[in-house]
């Protein structure tokens, strides 16, 4: 890390990163609403709490050792950053160094990256709605972050400590040339593959495919998708680590991909089911946002429209696959985040162009051949495989020791009441009685 005496702090960049950090934090409560609205009234609080406890746990781990494990460079390893329990106290006067020096305080960069570390495990919770023991989920979040997210963030996002012309400690996928601007692999594919593994570990909800599991509040889902969309500008455009032209390109690409995602999903629904649904609009926006996340700094806005549109179409078709394969990925973490994450990561290999970003690589449509596409596919495969296998092992280990799934009768009665001693809504006046 570079000392602040050598470089002058850029207040514009720093201000944008401070704002972006707050924007990305808001995505996790937004996700809680997005997921919370999709479950039944008896489990909405547990669904939202899985996101909120993740904010609590990961923030603390990040300060103690998480940031060093992901972005420290002392170990000079492609696999992890640095094993240190320093608590970040020694970094107050340093600038960010990530493959080059950025004139923003490293603690701002650390806080910004923390928000990514929070939302990634929170995303997984959608795969195991209504049925996970709360304590087991908390244990899972702590261990999963340590052995999956922090290392994978290093592989993908750590561009190394640059001193003079030497760069040390670059993550192995970043070093190979994988293009993932804001987390298509490290966040969405990572969470999607882990979600699939946990859905397999915990098994299907009681009554799956037999009783109605309709979303209890679509307005909450739409509110959540709106908050996610809003926060995503920080997620993507903040990843420029500067208030510059790339951030502007990313902002525009993010908007149009989300918009096209809405249209793509609704188009499939209108043709297949005859109606354009509000859940489809919310889901389509998220699909477009996920798909543009890795690609946002490397493609032209017209290509962002194509990427978003097909993300909406692919995900709308993919969410039904769980019924065919028989796994209860309750809120479609696989069908949305894994599918759109893979599509967006591969799409860079098609639409990537140096015309919009000099650090980019030309993809298939810009005469770059298939080299980038193959690189992207390779990176996607590695992250998905690592996340799936490690999560499967971790999930079964938790299931065999402290148990991961709530008791049958508690699941039927409702997880909110049994895990949190609360109910989300006062549904009738006759339930108002009671005494201390």
């Amino acid at each position: 890390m570079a000392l602040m005496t050598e470089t002058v702090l850029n207040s514009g960049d720093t201000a944008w990163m401070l704002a972006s950090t707050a924007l990305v934090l808001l995505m996790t409560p937004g996700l809680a609403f997005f997921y919370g609205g999709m479950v039944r009234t008896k489990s909405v609080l547990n669904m939202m709490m899985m996101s909120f406890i993740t904010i609590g746990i990961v923030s603390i781990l990040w300060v103690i050792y998480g940031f060093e494990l992901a972005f420290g460079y002392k170990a000079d390893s492609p696999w992890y950053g640095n094993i240190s329990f320093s608590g970040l106290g020694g970094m107050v006067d340093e600038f960010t160094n990530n493959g080059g020096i950025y004139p923003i305080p490293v603690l701002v960069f650390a806080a910004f990256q923390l928000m990514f570390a929070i939302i990634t495990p929170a995303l997984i919770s959608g795969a195991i709605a209504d049925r996970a023991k709360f304590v087991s989920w908390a244990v899972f979040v702590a261990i999963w972050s340590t052995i999956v997210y922090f290392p994978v963030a290093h592989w993908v996002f750590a561009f190394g400590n640059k001193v003079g012309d030497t760069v040390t400690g670059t993550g192995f996928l970043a070093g190979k040339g994988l293009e993932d601007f804001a987390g298509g692999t490290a966040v969405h594919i990572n969470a999607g593959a882990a979600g699939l593994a946990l859905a397999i570990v915990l098994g299907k909800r009681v009554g799956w495919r037999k009783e109605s599991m309709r979303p209890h509040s679509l307005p909450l889902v739409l509110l959540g998708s709106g908050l996610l969309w809003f926060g995503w500008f920080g997620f993507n455009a903040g990843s420029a680590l500067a208030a510059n032209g790339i951030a502007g390109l990313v902002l525009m690409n993010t908007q149009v991909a989300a918009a096209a995602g809405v249209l793509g999903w609704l188009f499939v629904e209108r043709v297949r089911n005859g109606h354009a649904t509000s859940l489809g609009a919310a889901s389509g926006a998220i699909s477009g946002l996920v798909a543009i996340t890795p690609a946002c700094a490397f493609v032209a806005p017209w290509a962002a429209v194509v990427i978003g549109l097909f993300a909406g179409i692919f995900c709308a078709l993919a969410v039904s696959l769980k019924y065919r394969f028989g796994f209860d990925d309750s809120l479609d973490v696989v069908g949305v985040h894994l599918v759109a994450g893979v599509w967006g990561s591969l799409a860079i290999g098609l639409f990537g162009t140096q015309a919009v970003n000099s650090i980019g690589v030309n993809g298939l449509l810009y005469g770059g051949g298939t080299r980038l596409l193959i690189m992207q596919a390779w990176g996607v495969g590695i992250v998905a495989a690592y996340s799936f296998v490690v999560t499967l092992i971790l999930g079964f280990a938790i299931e065999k020791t402290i148990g991961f799934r709530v008791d049958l009768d508690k699941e039927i009665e409702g997880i909110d009441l049994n895990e949190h001693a609360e109910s989300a809504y006062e549904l009738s006046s006759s339930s108002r009685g009671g005494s201390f």
Partner: protein
Amino acid sequence: MKLITAIVKPFKLDAVKDALNTHGIAGMTVSEVSGMGQQKGHTEVYRGAEYTVNLIPKVRIELLVNDEEVDAVLDVIVKAASTGSIGDGKVWTTPVEQVVRVRTGEKGSQAI
């Protein structure tokens, strides 16, 4: 004395209530209920998964009337609740043995 029970479409509640008020009947009990009948259900689609919803929301209106008023009140309710389409509901009567007004202890017709 008779208990009249009417199951009507929720959006017809105000029309029935107003018609009964105009007819001179001020007391009734209203509850939200759900049920099934000739109207059948409807289909809802969430992320491509279709759910058949066969319990449909209705409103139940209950009121007590003296025997000689029954037919006139039934007419008022039926006229106000009708839309002519399937799912308009049903109205029926049940004999009532005794009625007591809680405040005064009055019984029978006096209590209605």
